[in-house]
């Protein structure tokens, strides 16, 4: 092996090492927040009033531990370890109702286009999670108006989540890569960059696919799922 090849290998090893440290750092940060909150809130149970425990501390403990649980599942899925995928079979789900739940959880105004009574074959939790990721991404990294468009093709249902503000071509091409965070994501909020990778894994398990593309100045994330 010549010196140039040895230098190439050394550079690649340094790049991988840097990437590994960056990923572990952001994962550590995301894990630490709910863990610290849970520990501190648990300690505060000793001196809090029953009313504070019931109305503030208990809900916060449940919220933070649920976040931790989801984070563990997401990390496994994003790493291509599918042992935490749902075990229930897909069942008919009304798309409009699932979209309504996701919109309500996001607390934003979204225009719904198409037939909300359209039915897909999916796991309810997985569909909710996928839509939550897409709407959350639209709100965090795009601009209003936000639109969810329900359509049908041969034997399949499409759900488009649309926002204004198309990302850079490179960011779009790598959007489904786990731990990749585009320019808009890095400057908008902390995060792991695994939401779309998790959504893609959940969609694929239900026999569908997830794609993200630019259309003019809008970005369109499309979930395609089989009709029952």
């Amino acid at each position: 092996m010549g010196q140039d090849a040895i230098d190439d290998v050394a550079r690649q090893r340094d790049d991988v090492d840097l990437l590994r440290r960056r990923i572990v750092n952001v994962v550590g940060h995301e894990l630490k927040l709910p863990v610290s909150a849970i520990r501190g809130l648990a300690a505060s149970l000793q001196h809090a009033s029953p009313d504070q425990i019931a109305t503030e501390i208990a809900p916060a403990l449940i919220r933070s531990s649920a976040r931790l649980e989801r984070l563990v599942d997401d990390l496994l899925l994003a790493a291509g370890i599918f042992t935490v995928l749902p075990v229930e079979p897909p069942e008919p789900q009304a798309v409009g109702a699932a979209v309504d739940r996701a919109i309500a959880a996001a607390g934003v105004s979204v225009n719904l286009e198409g037939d909300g009574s359209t039915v897909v074959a999916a796991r309810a939790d997985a569909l909710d999670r996928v839509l939550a990721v897409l709407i959350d991404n639209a709100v965090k990294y795009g601009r209003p108006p936000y639109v969810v468009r329900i359509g049908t093709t041969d034997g399949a249902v499409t759900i488009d989540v649309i926002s204004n503000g198309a990302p850079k071509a490179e960011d779009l091409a790598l959007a489904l890569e786990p731990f990749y965070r585009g320019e808009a994501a890095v400057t908008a909020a902390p995060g792991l960059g695994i939401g779309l990778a998790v959504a893609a894994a959940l969609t694929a398990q239900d026999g569908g696919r997830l794609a993200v593309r630019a259309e003019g100045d809008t970005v369109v994330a499309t979930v395609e799922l089989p009709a029952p």
Partner: protein
Amino acid sequence: MTPMRTLRVVVADDESDVCLMLRMQLGAQPDLEVVGAAADGSEALELCRQLQPDAVVMDLLMPVMNGFQAIEAMQRELPGVAVVAYTGVAGEFVRHEMARMNVPLVLKSGDVTPLADALRRAAPA
């Protein structure tokens, strides 16, 4: 005997559960009173203008106005309010910036003892 002085503290963190934990844990200290909580740097700045606390606990990664920007504004506009930076993880950049700005840095933990001590040191009686 001199009565113990109570430090009036504002906490700023966009994580609502961390904010609640800080309110509960710092508020349980006999010499600390949490007088306000903010979800971003801009809110923290406005609260400090209104409440004139002794100290503020400032998360660094927050929306709207991050902690770095808020600390600069605090030091310029409200130099009498002590600032303690509070963050989940701190790389070289964060450590260097806080040292440059002469702001004590505390890592987030469910044990707030180091944070309470840092507040007492930053805003002495």
